[in-house]
């Protein structure tokens, strides 16, 4: 496996240009995913039809569910003269044929390079009474799919959120970040458990993990309702989970509607979940219910009971920054050693944040890289191996080549199912992660053990 890569690590500076086996993809897919989190929304990809097809395929493969979206289907003519006519025709056709409540347009690198003025085109389009067309720019040559997700969140706030003159309502907005529907559901459950009313968007629960019902609905029952999104301007506070995916949208909502935005990590691990709960407790002056204290206690109990199963093991983590940062924090909580930490997305904050976490924990000798790729990670592993890989499905080739077990977390996970329904967030998600990590290591131990070392109880 991966025999084409050099046996010995390549010298520093051999791979400086482009990406070899990336840990990121382009903006539009993130925008499409975010847009699917609005009820009765049809995402629209303004560019050539290939991008839209690729994004829908990737989303469907990860979620095992339909990812509906339309495209402007640029041809060479459109790429020369601009795509205004294609977008106007698309908007007309989509409303007449598919009747969504809202179309969320995002761009591609083609329409961005051409420089199509989307707001101007939307203004000239026929939009039926009571329907909406919103947009965001998603130039693929900047940032990553996480940036695209954030940009669509910003677009949603820009177009839809409104504030009345009335005093702020005792409700919280949840910007969940680029996570699975199972996580969104779990995060909202925790907030509800605390007795706080919430509005969550994007909300892909019951859209990208939609149940099999007796009747097919092109627009599934889930997704944030437009009126709720509008009302988010009246909320007292926004918890913006994930600096890359949610913080900017919350900042816009704060300046547009004076809703206090609280930037937080995605609640993966005990600490990040604690922080979210504390922010809510302080913001709404509520008591943390016993039920959550029990859930937390179960996690701590488990950590104490089985720490020896994983403590001291070295881990390589890769994926999106908003997932990798709190995941690394959890690994430290577990007493593991995050040895290599890579994201494909850009941002200095990534390296800074991880470095200070490691420093605080007194862990030395780790390597951290933003805008890295799996070729980089593989080189590091060839220099010094690890006990475990944690990340998306693309790492499975390194896992096989270097004979390292892999725990699948993040986006995309193409080769396993059910994960989009199951949380890795909150205390319950934390238990699930501990279980996955521990079981994977124990399976490995069982598999490798000589007969005389093979034991019933571990």
């Amino acid at each position, binding site marked *: 496996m991966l025999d084409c890569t050099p046996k010995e690590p390549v010298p520093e500076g051999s791979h400086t240009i482009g990406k070899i086996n990336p840990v990121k993809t382009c903006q539009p897919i993130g925008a499409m995913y975010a847009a699917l989190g609005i009820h009765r929304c049809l995402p629209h990809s303004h560019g050539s*039809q290939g991008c839209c097809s690729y*994004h829908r395929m990737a989303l469907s493969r990860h979620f095992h569910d339909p990812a509906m979206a339309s495209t402007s289907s640029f041809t060479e003519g459109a790429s020369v003269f601009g795509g205004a006519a294609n977008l106007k025709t698309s908007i007309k056709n989509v409303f007449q044929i598919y009747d969504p409540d809202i179309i969320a347009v995002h761009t591609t690198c083609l329409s961005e*390079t051409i420089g199509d003025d989307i707001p101007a085109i939307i203004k000239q389009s026929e939009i039926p009474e009571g329907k909406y067309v919103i947009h965001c720019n998603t130039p693929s040559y900047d940032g990553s799919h996480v940036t695209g997700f954030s940009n669509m969140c910003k677009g949603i706030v820009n177009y839809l959120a409104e504030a009345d003159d009335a005093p702020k309502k005792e409700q919280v907005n949840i910007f969940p970040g680029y996570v699975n529907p199972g996580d969104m559901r779990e995060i909202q459950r925790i907030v509800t458990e605390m007795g706080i009313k919430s509005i969550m968007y994007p909300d892909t629960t019951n859209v990208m993990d939609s149940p099999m019902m007796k009747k097919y609905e092109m627009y599934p029952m889930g997704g944030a309702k437009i009126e709720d999104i509008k009302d988010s301007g009246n909320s007292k506070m926004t918890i913006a989970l994930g600096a890359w995916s949610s913080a900017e949208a919350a900042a816009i909502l704060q300046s547009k509607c004076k809703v206090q935005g609280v930037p937080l990590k995605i609640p993966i691990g005990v600490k990040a979940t604690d922080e979210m709960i504390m922010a809510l407790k302080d913001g709404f002056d509520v008591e943390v219910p016993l039920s959550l204290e029990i859930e937390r206690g179960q996690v701590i109990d488990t950590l104490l009971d089985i720490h020896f199963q994983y403590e001291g093991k070295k881990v390589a983590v890769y994926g999106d920054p908003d997932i990798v940062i709190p995941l690394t924090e959890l690994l430290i909580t577990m007493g593991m050693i995050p040895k290599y930490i890579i994201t494909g997305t850009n941002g200095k904050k990534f390296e800074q944040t991880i470095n200070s976490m490691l420093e605080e924990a007194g862990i030395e000798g780790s390597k951290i890289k933003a805008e890295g790729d799996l070729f980089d990670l593989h080189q590091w592993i060839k220099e010094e191996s690890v006990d475990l890989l944690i990340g998306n499905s693309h790492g499975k080739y390194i896992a096989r080549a270097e004979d390292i077990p892999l725990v699948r977390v993040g986006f995309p996970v193409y080769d396993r199912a059910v994960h989009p329904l199951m949380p890795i967030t909150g205390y319950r998600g934390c238990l699930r992660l501990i279980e996955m990590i521990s079981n994977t290591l124990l399976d490995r131990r069982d598999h490798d053990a000589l007969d005389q070392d093979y034991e019933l109880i571990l």
Partner: protein
Amino acid sequence: MTLSKVDMDELMAPFPDKVVRNRKKHIVQKDCTESCQQIEANTRTVPGIITQRGCCYAGCKGVVVGPIKDMVTITHGPIGCAYYSWGTRRNKIRADDNTPAEDLYGAMCFSTDMQESDIVFGGEKKLAKMIDEIVGIFHPRAINICATCPIGLIGDDLGAVSKAAEERHGIQVLHYDCEGYKGVSQSAGHHIANNQIMEHIIGKGTDKVDGKYLVNFLGEYNIGGDAWEIEKLLEQIGYKIVSTLTGDSAYVNIRNMHQVHLNLVQCHRSINYIADMMETKYGTPWLKVNFIGIEATIESLRDIAQCFGDKDLIKRTEFVIEKELAAVTPEIERYKKICNGKSAFAFVGGSRSHHYQYLLRDLGMDVTVAGYEFAHRDDYEGREVIPTIKSDADSRNIPELHIEADQEMYEEPHIHLKMSKEKYDELVASGKLGNYEGMYPDMVDGGIMIDDANHYETEELIEIFKPDLIFTGIKDKYISHKMGVPSKQMHSYDYSGPYTCFRGAVTFAEDVANALSTPAWKMITPPWDKADIEGGE
């Protein structure tokens, strides 16, 4: 099976008038009493209609170029296109005598990952530097460069970058101007890839390939190991495959493809250009075959044997057919009991919707609606319509190579086949060589052929025809499920396969039977609702 006439106006009721006028031409209902009606194909998709189509890059890199196992393929553009075409098509590869594992790049993804400054100032330098680094790290035998959407617009000259890199490194560096907006679908990309492979790789090899019956297998992508199954079968009879195009193919083998006696064509759409051009340049005759389906496989084997006309070969062919058939018939009969009388839709690509009709017929199933994403009229109506196909602004953008007979290497087709001119002429007269009759003749009476089907039409047709199973791609698979219809992915086989030849038919039959009968289909309605419906039984 009798199928009622579909009222197209009713089907398209919610479409704006302009869309109705357009889409009506893309749907044909077969009427046995009439000759083949014309279908419109390979024209622009209606914006916003929710098409299944992909782009030129997907056809070039994803379908044709990407599977060549010993070439590094660099996608020049922002990260996405390379990323989505990385490991997402099941064209399996393996090491062999000519290509050790160190030369396999199938698990790799190379992207120049263009940034804003590259879009503004051009990406040529970045590409050149990346080629240098890749040569330094991997030492590949040859490199492909595939362009994505913005490249044409910013004016990067891939030809110049490639040429300079060839001079620097002494290996071939081919470039493909396959920007996503070119043409109207993946099809444009197939053509662009065919042109470059024909012009720059085929015929460049000088190693003599030995063998009495040398063939190439064109338009076979080794999804799920399909090509390996075919190779095993053909080798039993005495043929040697010099190269496939492009499943599990190697640059080093493609260079020697011109030495074969006969080209076999599986997927006509994606590769017919090379079959044609090789005939012009080298005199190599080509034969359309189909190894999907037992009857189809048998017919193809017999046709190939007839092309050489050798008595021993014909005898060995019959022997192998008999042996293989005996081995699979009992199993097929078992699955046929589950499948018989069921109907299916097939929406895929540019040839599978036709090929799988044979295999389904082996199981007693009929295809009532068959659609292509990116076919041309000849794939529906047969090659005789090619001279009547009008070119348009989109198709004119795809360059045609002007090929002439090679002065040294051209040989008359009958010499390739080692037969007399008279015998060869008889073979041509039988209509088999260099011909493809398209999907229409194999459609059931009343069956629908649909080009570039969109979501709305698909949903409506499901309502009308109520198929038992839908063969489609990942974008539609789960829609089909949510509509209560089992679905199999025809691009990835839902990670099963191979489906070719005799053994493959059994695997397919088992998968289809499982899809139809998995117990959960009976559990969709919860018991509390059932009580209501069935009157509290």
